[in-house]
């Protein structure tokens, strides 16, 4: 049985995130979306408040919170601006988590601490032009050289790609071992031969920067391999298991933002002499949106809760992401319908929610891939 009671601390974290989102994030969200502008000031402030290393131990400068706190914050921030949400999610789930779990103390001191206190943020580089869902087929090669490795290849779709300072890069160190020959490298932004490309011009989450990265004879010293040589694929997959909880919470936030906007508008907009919320056709939409939202919320909180209890959360995270991303897209679509023509223009926000929502069905494993993960876990249990 899954029951969940938020503690006073959880509520305070949620309320702080909500207030921050409303007062600091919302005012610039339309402009940043339109111009594809990175929320530099907002991320700086969030970093100072401890939102960039939420689950990192205080020993390394983090906030020492649980995964439930993290999803509450992700939900509130993403309900206002999903671009800010994904920047947080990548740094917390993929970068900080991997460094804290697999890094040496020296690596943690050098890279985790500044990331956890939010002085800088990171980027996670797994995807390639020809390796997306099939992340095993890495074309980026790392060749052993004296004192380290020399990397060549291209990474694609890298969130925080143009603004990050620290990158975790997967590359093939031994082709014959296939995915067991993939390793994870810590690379600093200004390393010679490491070149982030131009920002992608995207449908949604336009305030988050995404780019490809070229690597040409990039020298990485031995002590910048994260975990063991050959452990890279495991690091990537395990961090993505947790990352899905973050993206699921981002989707949950969009579903919530869409519902809240639709509910408010429906009570204010009058047609045929009464608020449209009096019309059964609109009420049916509101009821479905609220139910979808709550179902997503239960799955997302449950996945976080399982992680906090150190129980297996692989299937729960995939289910949460699958359902919450559907809820985000459906609620955003319906929110536009409730708004009528006003929903089709920038000023009323919900058109952005739809553009932002779609990405949650694509990154950190497409919905098709979530089905595969879930089915594999189900069948594992019976075979």
């Amino acid at each position, binding site marked *: 049985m899954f029951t969940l009671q938020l503690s*006073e*601390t959880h509520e*305070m*974290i949620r*309320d*702080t995130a909500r*207030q*921050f989102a409303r007062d600091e994030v919302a005012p610039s969200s339309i402009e940043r979306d339109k111009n594809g502008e990175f929320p530099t000031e907002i991320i700086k402030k969030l970093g*100072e*408040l*401890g*939102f960039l290393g*939420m689950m990192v131990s*205080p020993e390394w400068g*983090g*906030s*020492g*919170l649980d995964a439930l*706190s993290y999803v509450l914050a992700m939900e509130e921030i993403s309900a206002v601006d999903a671009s800010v949400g994904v920047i947080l999610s990548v740094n917390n789930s993929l970068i900080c988590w991997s460094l804290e779990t697999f890094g040496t103390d020296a690596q943690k001191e050098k890279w985790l601490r500044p990331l956890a206190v939010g002085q800088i943020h990171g980027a996670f580089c797994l995807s390639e032009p020809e390796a997306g869902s099939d992340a095993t087929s890495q074309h980026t090669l790392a060749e052993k050289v004296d004192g380290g490795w020399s990397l060549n290849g291209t990474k694609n779709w890298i969130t925080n790609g143009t603004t990050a300072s620290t990158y975790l890069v997967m590359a093939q160190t031994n082709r014959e071992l296939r995915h067991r020959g993939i390793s994870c490298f810590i690379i600093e932004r200004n390393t010679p031969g490491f070149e982030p490309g131009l920002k992608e011009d995207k449908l949604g989450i336009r305030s988050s920067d995404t780019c490809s990265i070229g690597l040409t004879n990039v020298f990485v010293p031995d002590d910048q391999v994260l975990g063991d040589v050959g452990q890279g694929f495991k690091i990537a997959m395990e961090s993505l298991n947790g990352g899905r909880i973050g993206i699921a919470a981002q989707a949950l936030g969009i579903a919530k933002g869409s519902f809240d906007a639709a509910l408010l508008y429906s009570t204010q907009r009058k047609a045929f002499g009464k608020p449209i919320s009096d019309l059964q056709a609109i009420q049916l939409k509101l009821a479905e949106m609220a139910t979808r939202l709550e179902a997503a919320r239960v799955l997302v909180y449950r996945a976080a809760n399982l992680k906090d209890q150190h129980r297996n959360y692989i299937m729960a995270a995939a289910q949460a992401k699958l359902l919450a991303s559907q809820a985000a897209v459906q609620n955003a679509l319906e929110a536009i319908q409730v708004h009528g023509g006003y929903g089709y223009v920038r000023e009323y926000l919900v058109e952005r929610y739809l553009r932002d929502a779609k990405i949650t069905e694509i990154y950190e494993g497409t919905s098709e891939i979530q089905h595969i993960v879930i089915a594999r876990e189900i069948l594992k249990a019976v075979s």
Partner: protein
Amino acid sequence: MNILVCISQVPDTTTRVAVGTDGSSINPAGVKFILNPYDEFAIEEGLRLREKSGGTVTTVTVGPDTSKEVLRTALAMGSDTAVFVKDESRSDSFVVASSIADLAKEITPDVILFGRQSIDFDSFALPSMVGELLGWPNISMVSSLTIEGTQVSAERDIEGGKESVSATLPCVISAQKGLNDPRYPKLPDIMKAKSKPIADRVATVVEPRVVTLSMTLPVSKRLNNIMTDSDADIDQLVRLLHEEAKVI
């Protein structure tokens, strides 16, 4: 400098309140409570005074058990200690002021900070009452504050302008919006606030001076102005739209 900040819990502005069964209080069931927004300025000012001149910030609230939560927020923002004065009676401002004044006599702060009003009952009475009970100067609606040694200079918002005043410590200040930009609690501090102690204190027993007889929600009244298509009614309608509704 030792600073006492007095804060309270109020229903969230988006909450719909209902009158309790006794007909003279708010039914707390299902109401989301928040820190009184004006108190955020008082806490922030207290923290800034401490950052400038050292000392400690103590935060106090007088109220029912549920109001303890706002003390956690103050602790998370940086208050050093917190005092909870349990008072389930929801009495008048004089009762609350007496408890606060008695606490102040014991811990002898140099300055007591309040928000200018609590947004639920709007009595505006507490800071002046506490000042009076202690025999201290009271400066209300302060939008700018400087304390050098024991010299207090403040600006107050008055109708159509500002007034500059001075006083000496100890004194009572109530904060107006704009006094500062309250900080957000940092996440690690929210965690730490959980383990900071909150001291329980017994409320001072005094007779309330004002007794609440009843509370009612505003009722929306229909005017029952029904117009027909007679010429007289149409003229009347045009006149009303022009003179009262002022839409034509």
